[in-house]
């Protein structure tokens, strides 16, 4: 029984998403993976349901729900298809949220409303070839010329990059100022001088799109500056605090999906003439994995509640992401052992879950970066 503090409304919403995940998404998830292509129609269908703006107030086109609802929805989507879930997570946590928290009214009307309503796809461009963990090392430049920002540079590994209508990104305005010189901007698809570049061939999440963004003398009007001058880096760091909960949930949900399929397999299969569930190695694997996942789940929902309570969650978000992503990958790996050889070909989706899960230990701050964040909070700088 789920005694965590979920209201009736939470659970009803979860059931709505679960219904979609199980009946609409699950049957096509393997196919999406095989084709390794972004399914635009499917994504827009999800958008029309309002799930691109779950934690955004209705007046800005969102569903007006809390972060716990958003995380519950991701949990259901991830269990069956990590690629679809990360598409939603990148859109919502990393593009919609910064515009909601840091945008002015004009920007909210112009960008947030269609993004939250699911009419447009959003993306977040922080990482660059030479600036991954060290996001402060941004080399993309923004120079003010004749009242316009001229952008030059390259972003790498941007989720939804090839398809995004609206992209929030960072650029350096003055190298001397280091972090303080980094500003955040909004760019729209089709802006002259801006174009998506190559896309990645990846271990997992193969139907999610990961692409370069190229800026070549791209001119943006001053209205496209997001947040106050000099606070671009802060905007992004705050965004990541929230984003971590969703990436953590993705890792956790994949692990939960793996556990479910291993349990189903163990209860219906034999090994050497004896039901699998009679083996203590099976019992142990299931028990250990379920326990770890349960602990991770508490960390994740705790962090989501902190976000709803609008308190600082730098440490808790990092802890939740660190633990849930590592546990998620481990769970997938271990649960495959229960299924045996059939776990590594197309017979069961579990191998896809493992490949998807590994990214959660890397994206939005690697596990090592999470440890640095947590360590700083406990030990000081």
């Amino acid at each position, binding site marked *: 029984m789920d005694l965590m503090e979920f209201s009736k409304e939470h659970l009803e919403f979860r059931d709505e998403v679960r219904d979609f995940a199980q009946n609409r998404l699950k049957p096509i998830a393997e196919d999406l993976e095989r084709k390794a292509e972004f399914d635009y129609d499917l994504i827009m269908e999800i958008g029309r349901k309002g799930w691109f703006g779950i934690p955004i107030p209705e007046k800005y086109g969102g569903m007006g729900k809390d972060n716990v609802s958003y995380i519950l929805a991701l949990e259901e989507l991830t269990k069956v298809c990590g690629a679809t879930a990360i598409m939603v997570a990148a859109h919502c946590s990393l593009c919609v949220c910064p515009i909601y928290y840091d945008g002015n009214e004009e920007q909210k009307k112009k960008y947030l409303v269609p993004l939250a309503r699911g009419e447009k796809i959003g993306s977040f461009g922080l990482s660059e070839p030479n600036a991954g963990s060290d996001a402060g090392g941004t080399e993309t430049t923004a120079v003010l010329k004749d009242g316009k920002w001229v952008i030059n540079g390259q972003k790498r590994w941007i989720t939804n990059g090839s398809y995004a209508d609206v992209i929030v990104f960072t650029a350096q305005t003055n190298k001397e100022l280091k972090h303080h010189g980094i500003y955040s901007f909004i760019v729209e698809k089709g802006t002259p001088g801006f174009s998506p570049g190559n896309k*990645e061939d990846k271990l997992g999440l193969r139907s999610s799109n990961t692409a370069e963004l190229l800026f070549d003398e791209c001119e943006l009007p001053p209205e496209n500056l997001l947040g106050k001058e000099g606070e671009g880096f802060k905007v992004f760091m705050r965004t990541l605090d929230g984003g971590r909960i969703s990436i953590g949930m993705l890792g956790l949900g994949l692990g939960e999906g793996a556990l479910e399929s291993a349990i189903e397999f163990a209860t219906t299969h034999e090994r050497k003439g004896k039901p699998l569930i009679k083996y203590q190695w099976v019992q*142990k694997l299931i028990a250990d994995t379920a326990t770890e996942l349960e602990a991770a789940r508490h960390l994740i929902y705790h962090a989501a509640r902190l976000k709803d309570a609008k308190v600082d969650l730098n440490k808790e978000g990092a802890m939740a992401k660190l633990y849930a992503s590592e546990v998620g990958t481990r769970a997938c790996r271990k649960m495959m052992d229960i299924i045996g050889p059939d776990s590594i070909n197309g017979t069961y989706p579990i191998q896809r879950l493992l490949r998807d899960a590994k990214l959660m230990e890397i994206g939005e701050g690697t596990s090592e970066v999470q440890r640095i964040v947590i360590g700083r909070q406990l030990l000081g700088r």
Partner: protein
Amino acid sequence: MDWLGLNNDHKLLRDDIAGFAKNELEEDVLEFDKEYKFFDSVWKKAAGMGLFGFMLPESVGGADMDAISLALCIEELAVVSPSFAFAVAVQNIGAYAIEKFGGMDNKADIVKDIVKGLKVALCMESICKLKCNDDRTQISGTSGFVVNGDNSKYCLMFASCAERNTYLYLDTADNCEFHKENEIIGMRSAGIGKFEVKPYAISDKNFLQPDEGEIEYLLKICVSAVSTGICAGSYNVAIPYSKERVQFGRPISKFGMVRRMVSEIEENARISRLLTYDAASKFRDGDRLAPYIASVTARDRAMVCGDRAVQVLGGAGYTKDYPAEMYFRDAKTLEALLYSAEEERELIGKIITD
């Protein structure tokens, strides 16, 4: 002898194979992995170098070497291509098993064929689902995950035949159909696929003599060697990357947590290597525990090494531009193809306590 118990010949052999792997496999390994392609032309060269008859007598074209030599060779190939190494391992196991335990009249010819490169497939005990009829005159059925099956001429199948579980020798030209596995997550260049055996008439000559577990031990030693190679390959991709990749103004190899990951890879490579050579050096004594422990540990460590390599590379490790994610997938494949570690640990405990 050095700390691993290797003599000079072993070392020369190791360097030879390492050079061969680098020259012949490195360039295409990522491409072939993507396309599930077997290294056909390298296979011929490997036959020319005598890599398929390590432990066979010279009379059938073998090299008459020990299990350590075989393990060394498999490890060095696996450093570059775990898939190719796995196929070569199976070829050697097949040749050894048929030469030593086969009952066919034309056994010597078959073994010579195998040494020359005609492929022998293996359907392992952990997987094989074939069954004989009651009077042991016919076998049929389908089994997945046959290794080195693509274009194979011969096959060793583990089957249950009237109360007896044993290896059977089949000529794949007769009534066998191979379907390549196009969705397996790793070991994609090892010619893995499904074997469909239509009713196939067999006689006593198809049965291998009782082997006292030797075939299984050799398989475990080889799988441990592939795993060790995966660790060493992970090392080869992670270490240079960590020295070149600059973040926060310095190479990431300067950071404690990256150093720790690098250390984990090397620790695990050494543990795997030691246990593999330990099992190989005890092969002739029929030591039961050593190959089990090597196989459980090395496969587990290979998975850790592949995972750490991906992690050291960060986002780059998640892409197909580097072999890190291939080692991760190949390691998981080995973990799944043989009995899983947890399952096998119960067995080891049983061996120890019985």
